[in-house]
């Protein structure tokens, strides 16, 4: 055989082999993933079992745990009806180290000498392992005596194009996502979350697609052809699926951006919402559009509208950065107004303990209260005063 013919045959065969390989990868990937799912579940359960055993051992050895500190709160934290209408203001914390480490939260709790009954973290949609229902995280939070709050963000581009052939290609996927959710396109994912949430059984806050009315922030905003009706339809659809799979242990937090007008048109209705979430973050003077806003200045305009909805209000992101004003002053005024202006509506406050926030500016923003020792001791005494009440 001539060398040229041989190369032609080899080239041809190689082409077919590669094509076969690609097909094989797609087929094998999806089949194997479904075969693997039960194994994965068992491994997760084994890990949880180990974690529980470790937690018990630690508790025995140290003669006490974080949960013991929160023991007086447990009747509230374990009851859905109490959590829908809490008799006292609940405090929570989000830490920038989640979900990899709790060290930052532990440090904050040490410094303010307090253990937060709510622990807040963020989870985005997708096919990756860390985008599935965070069973290990919520179980750990529950063991620590707190209630988890998950901000559930529909970043739909993280779904694998090869596996999810029913979804539009990545480039078009972020357009009108909410309508697609309402149309059941994402049920494969929502159902898994609903089942896992139901299996968890204990109360859990879920804040879905927050700041849906802000056209400058997230892909599920109005800039991508998402109308208020679409949001409401998507919300109801998800709520329905969770109910259907028995996830009645979920407290739904509806969280619009209150600085944008007409947020009330995104309200799904009282039977679908348990809480109203409001982010009150003061960006100080970091950008042209921002200036130093006090807690009261941010909240006052929207508050009467929110109050009319007759649901408990949660300051789901509470904090200020350092540039442009006095941190101590900001917190001190905020606590004053929580007691005297918003005492009727606001029932929960989640500290935003993120010291390296890069989501907005091109550099790190420090939201942590611990950057100011005075503000830290103020927060500590405010928390102590309220838990003594």
């Amino acid at each position, binding site marked *: 055989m001539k060398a040229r013919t041989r190369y032609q045959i080899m080239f041809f065969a190689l082409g077919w082999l590669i094509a076969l*390989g690609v097909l094989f990868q797609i087929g094998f990937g999806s089949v194997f993933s479904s075969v693997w799912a039960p194994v994965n579940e068992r*491994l997760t359960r084994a890990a949880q079992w180990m974690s529980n055993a470790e937690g018990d051992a630690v508790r025995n050895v140290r003669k006490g745990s974080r949960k013991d500190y929160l023991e007086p709160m447990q009747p509230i934290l374990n009851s859905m009806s109490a959590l829908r209408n809490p008799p006292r203001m609940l405090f929570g914390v989000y830490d920038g180290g989640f979900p990899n480490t709790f060290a930052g939260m532990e440090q904050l709790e040490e410094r303010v000498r307090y253990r937060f009954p709510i622990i807040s973290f963020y989870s985005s949609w997708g096919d990756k392992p860390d985008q599935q229902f965070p069973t290990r995280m919520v179980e*750990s939070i529950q063991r620590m005596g707190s209630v988890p709050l998950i901000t559930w963000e529909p970043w739909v581009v993280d779904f694998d194009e090869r596996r999810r052939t029913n979804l539009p290609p990545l480039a078009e996927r972020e357009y009108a996502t909410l309508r697609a959710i309402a149309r059941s396109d994402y049920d494969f994912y929502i159902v898994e979350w609903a089942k896992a949430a139901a299996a968890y059984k204990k109360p859990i806050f879920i804040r879905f697609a927050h700041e849906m009315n802000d056209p400058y922030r997230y892909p599920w905003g109005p800039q991508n052809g998402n109308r208020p009706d679409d949001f409401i339809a998507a919300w109801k659809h998800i709520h329905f699926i969770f109910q259907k799979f028995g996830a009645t242990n979920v407290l739904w937090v509806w969280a619009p951006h209150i600085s944008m007008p007409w947020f009330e048109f995104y309200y799904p209705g009282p039977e679908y919402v348990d809480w109203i979430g409001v982010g009150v973050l003061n960006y100080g003077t970091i950008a042209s559009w921002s200036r130093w806003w006090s807690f009261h200045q941010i909240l006052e305009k929207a508050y009467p509208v929110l109050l009319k909805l007759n649901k408990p209000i949660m300051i789901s992101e509470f904090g200020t950065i350092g540039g442009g004003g006095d941190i101590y002053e900001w917190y001190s005024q905020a606590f004053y107004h929580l007691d005297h202006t918003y005492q009727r509506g606001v029932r929960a406050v989640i500290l935003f303990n993120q010291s390296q926030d890069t989501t907005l500016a091109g550099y790190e923003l420090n939201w942590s209260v611990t950057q100011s020792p005075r503000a830290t001791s103020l927060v500590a005494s405010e928390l102590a005063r309220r838990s003594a009440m």
Partner: protein
Amino acid sequence: MHPWQDDAEIFRHRRARPVRNWERWLVAVLLFLGVQSVVYFGQWWFRLEHVNNVALFVLLSTATWYGISRLLIGWYNAFHIDQPDPVDAPPGLRVAIFTTSAPGEPYEMFVRTLAAARDVRYPHTTYLLDDTRDPRFAELAREMGAVHLEIIGVPGAKAGKINRALELTSEDFILVLDPDHIPFPDFLDRVLGYFADEKAGFVQVAQAYYNARQSFVARAAAEQTFAFYGPTMQGMHGTGTSVAIGANCTFRRKALDSIGGHGLGLAEDLVTSIRLHAAGWKSCYVPEVLSRGLVPADLDSFLRQQLKWSRGVHDVLLHEYPRAFRRLSVHQKISYLMIGSYYVVGLTTLIYLSIPLIYLWFGAQPAVILLADFLKHGLPIGILGAVIYRFTQRWLCDPVRERGWHWRGTLMKIGSWNVFLRGLVLAIRGVEVPYIPTRKERHRGNVWTLARVPLLTIMLSIVTTVWTVIRQLFFVPESEVLITTEVTAGMVMFLMINIVLMSGRVYAAWVDSEVRE
């Protein structure tokens, strides 16, 4: 009777079974699946979200992909398994058998070897290349009808003596026989026919051992060779890359002359074959057991041999390989790179051993990977590796005695990591290791000197485990304990695996310390 106890059965000619068409197709399918499993693992492994500590991730990836690439090349090699069709030896060839003796080698061994060489049927002349200065050896050679060549003071140990003997003799074909190997009578009849091909430079046959059950070390050392003389070398024959191994190789004098004689150095056999290949000579591997010899039976000799090989092979990689590179075929380029980098496993083992220790002491983690996810993507490679390993064992030269998982060989290979690493360092620094012929009888040893590094590794692993438990129980914040269970438990599990991996050599050292001399 146990297959290793029947002398008549052990000292009998055997040939690997022929390759059938369906088997070749099946290996092709397995190779395809193997490549797919590597792609499946690779597209998952190299995801940015996995990277944690960049430097550690690079190290871990290097170690992992070093192993995977060797596996891939091994599968590709298995796809080329081929055997030369037997060719009758033409009468009238002029053949020499060279065997060497050095001071300290036991006299009784030569009685047996020279008698067996005399009984090889094809007409030949046996030469004893002797520098013992012991009159008994000259006497023995005379008795056994061998020519005694006293060659003293030549540099380059065995190869030096061979080169000197080449000047003193004139036969066209030379079988280099290690003195511990007992050739079967039909040895030359089954080998010489392949030289009908004018370009055939050397013909190598399998090496097999009769003392493979003498001790744990002997068993492990023998296990390390089974696959090599079975499917591996047959695949190399298929790609024209089979190499000469010091013993049992028959050379064409013209070929040796063309490269200025037998190569020198600690891996003189490898030097010789790379030079012959570079000079355009073809090699032939005959998967037949035509002699049986001795494998190191005590840990000290085993480790000396490993150091010698590691140092020598790295030398070939660093010096011979670049020189020969342009004149080698593509397959030969890959093959010699694979052989030359075999002992890099010493370095990758160090990486694997360090990763859990680094995490548990300093908290640095190479990758954020769920164990379940790792298993999911790595399992197909593992399964195919095992299936191909076992399937190709049908082409072992002596399957009844050689088939198995060869865990002793694997344990001893991983347990010798520091020796390999030392060979690498010595080769890079150009420090010489004296050439010592591998000792032929068992030797008493001391556990601490023979297994210091694995013992220290085990102790460090135990201390780390105890410290981790204490720290988790008393000092780490509770929430941190709860959320890091998987990583901590996973790393402690790796420590346990490391202890198991290091235990083989410690056991071998302990056995040797109990030997009565």
